[in-house]
């Protein structure tokens, strides 16, 4: 059933991916103001949001920024459309905004030692925070993919192997590898769209 749908509609965004339906259902309940959904969303995303906030702004303010992110998300949930992006991405975007505000309010500019960014005019720190938000979001979403799907997508990202070589490496059918890469990228794209929606 899934394969048939994929073959016919594979480049359409409205293909229903049954694996991500649970995420959408939770997002819909969250937007509808279901308070149990709030608890579930906190449980599902607190770890990764804390990881982002800590890396971006430091351990001493991470907990506050995480709390502010969830409070702001709940209050502005009417602005989130589960059909247009993933909730995790949207939450990451709110956290990114909170981190940016945090730096602005203290007139600090975050320096990313790893990329050795030079400080110039016009809040370059925002680029660093944005980059970190995107990277953590994609990394987290990648880690959440089902194992087979994740393997294929990782080999697509980080190696130059052809589809056939990936199929050989993972021991899986060629058709499954191609489908996993498409669907995996589609899920990651939804997260990015959620992030972009909270800009």
């Amino acid at each position, binding site marked *: 059933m899934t394969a048939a749908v994929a073959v016919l509609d*594979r*480049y*359409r*965004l409205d293909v229903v991916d049954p694996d991500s339906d649970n995420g959408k259902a939770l997002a819909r309940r969250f937007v509808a103001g279901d308070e149990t959904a*709030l*608890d579930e969303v*906190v*449980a599902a995303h*607190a*770890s*990764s949001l*804390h*990881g982002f906030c*800590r*890396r971006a702004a430091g351990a001493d303010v*991470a*907990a506050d920024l*995480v*709390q*502010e992110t*969830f*409070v702001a998300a*709940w*209050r502005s949930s009417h602005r989130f459309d589960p059909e247009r992006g993933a909730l995790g991405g949207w939450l990451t975007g709110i956290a990114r905004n909170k981190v940016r505000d945090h730096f602005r309010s203290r007139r600090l500019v975050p320096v990313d030692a*790893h*990329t050795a960014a030079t400080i110039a005019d016009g809040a370059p720190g925002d680029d660093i925070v944005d*980059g970190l938000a*995107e*990277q*953590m979001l*994609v*990394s*987290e979403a*990648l*880690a959440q993919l089902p194992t087979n799907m994740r393997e294929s997508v990782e080999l*697509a*990202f*980080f190696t*130059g192997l*052809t*589809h056939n070589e990936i199929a050989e490496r993972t021991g899986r059918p060629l058709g499954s590898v*191609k489908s996993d*890469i*498409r669907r995996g*990228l*589609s899920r*990651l*794209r939804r997260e*990015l769209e959620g992030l972009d929606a909270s800009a």
Partner: protein
Amino acid sequence: MHPHDDDELLLNAVRGASMNVDTATLDTATLDAATLDPELSDELRAASRLGDIARAARSRGLTTDFSDEVDVASIAASVRAGLATSDDHGGSAQRTPGSAPSSSSGSGRPDHLAAVLAANDSASPTNVVPLRRTRRWVPAAAAAVVAVVSLGIVATIANRGPDETVLALTSLDAIGPAGGATAELVEVDGELTVHVHTPGLTSPDVTAGDGYFEVWLLDATASELLSLGPAVADGVYSLPEGFDPATLPVVDVSVEHFDGDPTHSGDSVLRGVLDI
């Protein structure tokens, strides 16, 4: 592989120029595909972006274990607390009219005072505003917002002699750390006086001998003033003959300096409104 196979295009896009890809073939194929199917070109663009992000994340070590160990329950509790206690915008609407914070608690913090001002704007029949520049006096430094805290009318009237009639009474609320002061408009033998009681009123400048307390009557907008003179021990101040106290119902006590300037310093320490 057919060069225009969509899966091949996708795989190439994910890898972008940083990987071992025949960019000439990719560009041509991508352009052709974009002409044929805009959704496909969107997908290829997104795939390229995702690839760049994933590789950037990997190069900075964000692969696994980037999520922190957190106490989900305590975060959930803090979120609920944050949702429950935050004010709606326009907090003055939530204050009970007539409620007043303790006059001894004036800490001088601007946000506290601003909130009280907002509350009292809706509560008080006579709004007392900060002293402004008029032709009669010039305030010493920009006194900023001088907060007026409540206008309680003391309920019980002290026992008076047969010739004394208390016409109006107010508690003077502190603008700053003092508290517990009162003012009364008293008629004695047909003569009007203002009695001001200021137990425990101190000021660093006064204590140091650099200043003194002065008593004033103001109008509701604090633009008309009448000085009742420096504070005296018995706290009794005569009003000019023929003067109608209803025109200046606000009693104000300020700290003044020996500068030869008769105008109000702008530095009020007590204020209250007589309900005349």
